[in-house]
């Protein structure tokens, strides 16, 4: 990360009131004073900017600053949590004392010294987007607007937005860890509406990641379906999507073969297996993957990893929100379940090491095991061959998101651009539709897997227990032998 920035957390080394080891030690000692077995301090400073264009003009620019300290105290499976926004000694001590109340017993001990993890660099930003003059960002939006309008006379509305963020954090734990990170993010999106003969349809495109405005440079980063991430490219992609949907027909209903395009289809994994492998559910025995380590949970084509190390990806992190450094961890190997994603709490329960998946939305929330970038690795098949193998089915190209019921494994995910496949060829565009299936069942029916892995461009946000965190997904072309398509024609 850059050092030259106007934005620094007050509690960080370049801030106005840096938190030193002695302050952290005293607060941890106070947090453990009622008998807690473990405590941590989570300092967070979040600055975000937003720019939104509509009707050809930048209508509003926005900025937000949010900052505070969350104190967590644990005893057994019980957690006490408190947070404050003011970082005065008095306020920080108040939070530590409030969180401490969860425990009753002998005073725990604070660390005498802290260990700082070695530097990790999964995002490198020369100049934070926040530090770049606003005019340059306005011009990116205006370029998208011009390109979309010029692309086709049927485009009646164009909206474009840019969101930029810096999240600086500092974690100190009673086990003696002291970790910090500066996490940048940009997210760009274009949405258009096309109108023809009284029919209207929308189309969209977006991307970003843990980077700055170099995202928009040719060859800047390798995410998504194209290596061109210019505003013009996104504008044309949104226009293409909207125009394709103008001709969309009612989608079929019932069980059939489905082929998923590479990249964003990784949502399938995120919902069908990812959430079920977050170890909090397994600690409680409430996931349908509970107690199934070593068992077959997918077809033998499937190897699934959660990889926080992908350079500049939206889901990547140098340290998690408990101060642990995640690596690429295999969850499913050739169809066999081999591991869960852990935070501190679940790792202790399973007597294993945390995997660095302890994440939280902000200092106002306690950490949970969460995914970073969840990927299905490449298979042996040529994508063309996969499509040719389908007599009658659906080809899914763009997605709106998904949801899973952890207990029984049922999941849905919505297709915002899909096509019929007839006799091995992609034909008619279909209206928006959902796929519904059961995680282990559908994963077992993955019958072909392409050699064309892509990582999603940075647009996805995952919600769990009311907490949102940015994530990435990725996969090659996938063929599912049978899954329910939720259309209206049967």
């Amino acid at each position, binding site marked *: 990360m850059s050092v030259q920035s106007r934005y620094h957390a007050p509690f960080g080394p370049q801030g106005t009131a840096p938190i030193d080891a002695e302050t952290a030690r005293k607060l941890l000692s106070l947090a453990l004073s009622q008998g807690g077995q473990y405590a941590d301090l989570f300092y967070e400073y979040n600055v975000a900017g937003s720019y939104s264009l509509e009707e050809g*003009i930048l209508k509003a620019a*926005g900025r937000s600053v949010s900052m505070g300290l969350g104190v967590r105290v644990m005893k057994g499976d019980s957690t006490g*949590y408190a947070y404050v926004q003011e970082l005065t000694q008095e306020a920080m001590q108040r939070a530590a004392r409030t969180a401490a109340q969860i425990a009753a017993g002998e005073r725990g001990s604070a660390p005498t010294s802290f260990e700082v993890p070695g530097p990790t660099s999964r995002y490198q930003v020369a100049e934070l987007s926040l530090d770049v003059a606003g005019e340059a960002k306005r011009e990116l939006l205006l370029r998208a607007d011009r390109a979309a309008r010029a692309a086709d006379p049927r485009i009646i*509305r164009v909206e474009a937005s840019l969101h930029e963020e810096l999240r600086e954090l500092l974690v100190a734990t009673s086990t003696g860890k002291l970790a910090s990170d500066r996490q940048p993010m940009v997210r760009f999106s274009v949405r258009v*509406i096309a109108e023809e003969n009284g029919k209207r349809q929308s189309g969209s495109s977006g991307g970003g990641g843990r980077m700055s405005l170099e995202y928009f440079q040719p060859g800047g980063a390798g995410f998504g379906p194209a290596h061109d991430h210019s505003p013009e490219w996104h504008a044309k992609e949104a226009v293409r999507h909207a125009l394709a949907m103008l001709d969309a027909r009612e989608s079929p209903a019932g069980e059939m073969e489905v082929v998923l395009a590479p990249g964003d289809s990784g949502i399938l994994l995120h919902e069908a297996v990812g959430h079920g492998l977050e170890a909090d559910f397994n600690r409680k025995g409430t996931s349908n993957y509970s107690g199934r380590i070593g068992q077959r949970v997918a077809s033998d084509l499937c190897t699934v990893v959660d990889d926080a190390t992908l350079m500049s990806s939206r889901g990547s992190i140098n340290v998690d929100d408990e101060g642990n450094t995640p690596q690429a961890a295999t969850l499913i190997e050739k169809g066999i379940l081999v591991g869960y994603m852990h935070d501190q709490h679940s790792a202790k329960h399973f007597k294993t090491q945390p995997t660095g998946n302890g994440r939280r939305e902000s200092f106002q929330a306690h950490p949970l095991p969460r995914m970073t970038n969840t990927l299905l690795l490449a298979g042996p098949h040529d994508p063309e061959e996969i499509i040719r193998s389908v007599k009658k089915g659906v080809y899914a190209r763009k997605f709106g998101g998904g949801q899973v019921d952890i207990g029984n494994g*049922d999941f849905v995910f919505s297709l915002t651009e899909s096509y019929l496949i007839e006799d091995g060829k992609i034909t008619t565009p279909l209206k*928006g539709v959902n796929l519904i299936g059961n995680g282990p069942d559908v994963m077992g029916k993955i019958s072909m897997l392409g050699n064309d892995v892509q990582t999603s461009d940075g647009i996805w946000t995952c919600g769990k227990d009311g907490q949102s965190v940015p994530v990435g997904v990725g996969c090659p072309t996938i063929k599912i032998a049978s899954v329910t398509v*939720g259309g209206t024609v049967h």
Partner: protein
Amino acid sequence: MTDYDINKLIELGAQVVERARRCGADVAEAVVGEGAHLSVKVRMGEPELVEEAGSKSLGLRVMRGQQVAVTYTSDLTPAGLSRFIEDALELAKLSQPDPFAGPPDASLLSKPAERPALDLYDPAIHQIDAARALDMAKRAEHAALSSDTRLRNSEGATMTRQAGASALVTSGGFSGGTRGTYASLAVHPVADDDDGKKRSGYHWSARRYFADLDGPEQVGLEAAKRTLAKLGSRKVDTQEVAIVFDPDAGRSILGLLASCINGGSIWRKSSYLTEREGQAVASSLVTVIDDPFIPRGPGSRAFDGEGLLARKNLIVDQGVLKTFLLDTYSAKKLGKTSTASASRGSSGGVGPATSNFILQPGTLSPDELLRSTDKALYVTDMMGFGFNAVTGDFSRGASGFWVEKGQRMFPVSEVTISLNLDQMLKRIDAIANDQDLRTSISAPTFRISSMTIAGK
């Protein structure tokens, strides 16, 4: 915990507005919010989480001429505030003049004497401390798990209480504040099904007044009932059939209608209802009212986010679309007047939003509605996001139970239900009388004569 002093919040808002004006803002509007919450969770009889915290924040919208910026901060130190105001003015230079931007006409702003008391703040809410909240959650979970031996696990029981206040001050001459409280209790039991799957269900109670909450045992027993009802769930064949929505599922259908009559979606041509004012958009059984004046209502408000006196709006009258929900901006865009439906987020941004958006109850009890149904899927839960507001196309995952000849037959899961929202609303052929008081968007049980189920 002390009760909130709205005057102090107004004072801070007024200071910020004044400073922004001195820095060159032609229009400045500040919203100051303060709140505190307690949230506890019990799982398998043991405390799992006790979280307690308070927060305070400031949102500001400024205009230089018709250039707009919106800023938010939780850093209320003097240095933080100075930078916050400077940033807002600097950002406004970046945005481009929007001919429709501007505050509401000063003559429309509500006066303190006009604003009704809505009874939204329960002074007794602070009596719930962590120990008492844990006890209620424990009792609720115990009631669920001890009611049936098949309920052997739990995602836990959660009890929360929150209290807060906010104030709005504008350079146009409005200042006012409001206080509110909210308490909720939810139970989430888990049962093992014969096929090795877990079946989880939940039930919850939520009210502005603590004393109005359902008792822990009642909430727990209902959660148990809902969870057990899912045991043995199966898929049904793909077919066209009637669909009944219970209040939990029906609320989200009504929420889709709310998003499609929002003035912001209308001028953006992002709603399938864009040109439909004055036309039939639902069956004649359907009347929807947005009513901000319900005492103790979860979405009640005396004035809107721009300071206009709130007003009751008839949205759909016996199937006919009467009005969109408008703030000053969307009203100008559409050549109309505001329906006093502006909402101002804590971050300072303004847009139209519902207050208490209610599908008016019918006369049948839910049981009578069930008994009058020949064949249907009775939906209690939905999953996913399959809705396109521009076209009205709807497709979502659903679970619930099968109904034949007025009888409950067996539980159903892993199917989708699909139809265009326009058709769905027009096919509503029965509405029950069980109005749900827990949420600001609320629908009683209702039935749609036919939709497509995709299953086997």
